[in-house]
C-alpha cells in the first residue's frame, strides 16, 4: 500500500506529456483562444482597434442585410456544391482511367497534377487571360470563323462564378485524382480477380465493391475539398477582384475587406464567425462518422 501502490495516471509517460505541452498550449491559446476571442469581439462595435463595447447582435443584423454578404454566400454555395461534385467525379474518373495499367502512367499523372503546383494567384491570372474576350477563347474561336461566338464569363455578372469554378477545378482536380488513385491501389488485387471470376462487369465492380471499400479515402478527400471551398479567396482576388460589380464576391474576401480596408473589425469578426459556423457544420458530422464509429472496437 501507501506510496508504492500505484503510480498516478498523471505521471505515466511523463516525458511524452512534457514534450507535447508546447503543442497543447499552441492549440489551446492560438486556435481555441483566438476563436473565442474573435467570437467575443464580434458582439462589439470594434473599429480599427478591438474594444469591448458590446452592441449585441447589431453586427450580425448588418451582416445579413448587406447585399454584398448575401451575394458572397450565394456564390460560395454555387461554387461549393459544384466544385465538390465535379472534383469528386472528375478526380475519380481520371484515377479509374489511370488505374487501367496504361502506358506512360507516370507522365499522365504528372500532367494532371501539375496545375496543383501553381498557386491560386497564378491560376487566377492565367484564367483571367484565357477567359478574356479580347485575347482568350472567344478571340480564338472567332478567328476560326464563328463571328458571333460569345464566351466572356468574367464580364457577365450572371455567370462569373462559373468562370472561377473552371479555374478552381483545373487547379484542384489533379490532387483529388492522386488521392483516389492511392485509394484504388489500396484495393486488394484478389478482389478484382474474384469479381472477374463471378463475371461482374467492370463498372459494377467499381460502383458497388470498390467505392464502398474506399470510404476513408472519400471522407478525407471530402474534407480537403470542403476546407478549400470555405477559404476561397486568392483565386477570386486574382481573377476578378470580386467583379463585375460585386458579382463574384466570397465570404473570406468580405471578412478581409471589412477588417483591414473598411477598418471595421466587428463586422469582419461577425463574418468570420459565420464562416466558422459553416466549417463546423462540415467538420462535426465528419468527426462523428470517423471517430464516433470506432467505439464499437
Amino acid at each position: 500500500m501507501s506510496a508504492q501502490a500505484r503510480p498516478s495516471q498523471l505521471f505515466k509517460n511523463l516525458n511524452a506529456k512534457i514534450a507535447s505541452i508546447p503543442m497543447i498550449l499552441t492549440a489551446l491559446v492560438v486556435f481555441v483562444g483566438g476563436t473565442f476571442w474573435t467570437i467575443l469581439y464580434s458582439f462589439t462595435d470594434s473599429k480599427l482597434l478591438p474594444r469591448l463595447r458590446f452592441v449585441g447582435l447589431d453586427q450580425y443584423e448588418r451582416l445579413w442585410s448587406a447585399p454584398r454578404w448575401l451575394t458572397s454566400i450565394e456564390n460560395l454555395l454555387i461554387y461549393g456544391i459544384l466544385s465538390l461534385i465535379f472534383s469528386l467525379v472528375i478526380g475519380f474518373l481520371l484515377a479509374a482511367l489511370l488505374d487501367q495499367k496504361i502506358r506512360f502512367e507516370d507522365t499522365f499523372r504528372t500532367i494532371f497534377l501539375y496545375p496543383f503546383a501553381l498557386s491560386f494567384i497564378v491560376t487566377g491570372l492565367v484564367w483571367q487571360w484565357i477567359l478574356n474576350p479580347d485575347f482568350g477563347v472567344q478571340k480564338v474561336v472567332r478567328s476560326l470563323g464563328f463571328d458571333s461566338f460569345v464566351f466572356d464569363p468574367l464580364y457577365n455578372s450572371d455567370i462569373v462564378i462559373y468562370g472561377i469554378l473552371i479555374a478552381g477545378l483545373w487547379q484542384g482536380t489533379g490532387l483529388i485524382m492522386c488521392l483516389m488513385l492511392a485509394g484504388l491501389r489500396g484495393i486488394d488485387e484478389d478482389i478484382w480477380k474474384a469479381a472477374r471470376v463471378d463475371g461482374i462487369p467492370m463498372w459494377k465492380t467499381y460502383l458497388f465493391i470498390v467505392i464502398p471499400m474506399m470510404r476513408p479515402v472519400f471522407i478525407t478527400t471530402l474534407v480537403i475539398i470542403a476546407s478549400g471551398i470555405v477559404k476561397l479567396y486568392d483565386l477570386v482576388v486574382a481573377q476578378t477582384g470580386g467583379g463585375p460589380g460585386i458579382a463574384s464576391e466570397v465570404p473570406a474576401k468580405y471578412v478581409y475587406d471589412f477588417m483591414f480596408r473598411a477598418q471595421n473589425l466587428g463586422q469582419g469578426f461577425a463574418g468570420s464567425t459565420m464562416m466558422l459556423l459553416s466549417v463546423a457544420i462540415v467538420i462535426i458530422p465528419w468527426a462523428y462518422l470517423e471517430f464516433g464509429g470506432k467505439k464499437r472496437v
Partner: protein
Amino acid sequence: MKFTKTLLAGSAAIALSTSAFATDLEVTHWWTSGGEAAAVGEFAKAFDATGNKWVDGAIAGSGGTARPIMISRITGGDPMGATQFNHGRQAEELVEAGLMKDLTAVAEAGKWKDVINEIGLLDSCTIDGKIYCAPVNIHSWQWLWLSNKAFADAGVAVPANWNELVAAAPKLREKGMVPLAVGGQPWQTTGVFNVLMSGLGGKDLYLKVYDAKDAEVAGGADVAKIFSALNDAREMSRGSNVQDWNQATNMVITGKAGGQIMGDWAQGEFQIAEQVAGTDYSCLPGLGVNELLSTNGDAFYFPKVDNAEISAAQDKLAEVLFAPTTQVAFNLKKGSLPIRKDVDLAAANDCMKKGLAILAKGGLVKSTDQLISPDTATQIDDLMTQFFSDESITPEDAQKRFAGIIKSAD
C-alpha cells in the same frame, strides 16, 4: 570565444559610429508610379540635406494594400519613423489610442495655421486641440476631362458643362465612341458619384449628406436628381470595359472616349502623352457647374517612439515637409496643389491654374475621406460598383440603399 568578443565589439563600434553620424528614419508610403516616385524623391532630398537619412519604405499596390500593412506595423509594436495616410479619418483611431506623436510644437513654430490654404486641412489633423499630422498636398476629385478630338470627330462642340456632355452623348455613340469612360474599380464609381453630388448638387447638399449625415436629405428629391444623373453616367459609360483609372484616361487621350471624371492626378497621364491643355484636351473643374474642389490629399503621421534621436528627426521631417521650397518642388512633380498659400507655382499648366484660381476664391470643400469613416466609404463603394455593373438596379433602389447607409454612417 575571443573571436566572438571581437566580433561583438566590432559590430557595436559600427552601430555606434553610424548612429552618431545621422539618424535613419524609415518613411512608408504608397507612391510608386513614375511621377509619384519623382515627387517623393524631392522630400527625401530635402530631408537628407538636414543631415539625417530618409530610408524609403515604398509599398506597392495603392493605398488599399498599403494601409493594412502600415497599421499592423504600428499596432504590432514595430513602428516606422513616419508614414503616409490620406488626411482624414483613416488614422483617427491610431491617434486616439495614443500611438501617434503630437506635432503641435512644430506646427506652432512653423505657423502652420497662418499659412495653410484651407484650415479644414489642419482640422483633420487635430484631435483634442493637438496636431498629429503634416498635410503635404491637396488633390481634388472634381474634374471632368474631355477629349477635344472625340468631339471634333463626332461633329459637336466640346461641352462646357455636364449637361452639354449628356446632350452630346448620342452623337458620340453614333461614331462608336464611349461618351464617359469609367474604370471598373469600386473607388472610381464612388468618385463619379461624389463629384456629381458636389458638382450638380452644390456645397450645401454635399455637406448635408456627408457632414451632417442627414438620411432624409439623402433620400430626398435633391439627391434623387443626383441619382438620375448617375443613371446617365451609367448609360454613357457602357462599353468602357477597363479596370484601371489610367486605362480609362487613355481612352480619352486616344479619342475613344468623350470624357472621364477623375481627380487631378489624371493630368500626369495627359502630360506623359504630350497633350496640351486647351487644344488636345479640356478640363472642367466641378463639372462646369459648381466650381468646388474637395481637399483630398495626403498627410504624414509620425508614430510615437521612445528614442530621443528618432523623435528629433521626426520633428525635423515634419518641418521639412511643410517648408515652402519642398512644397513647390514636390507639388510640381506630383501635379497636386500646395497646402501653403504663400508659395508661387509659376510653372503650373492651364488646368492647374484653374485649380489655383478656385483655391484663391475659397472654393474648397472637405473631402469624403475627411467626413465619413472608411467603413461607410466601403459600403458606398459596394453600392456604386454594383449599380454600375448591374443594369437591373434602378436609381430609386440605389438611392434607398444610399439613404440607409447614410443613416447608419459615422
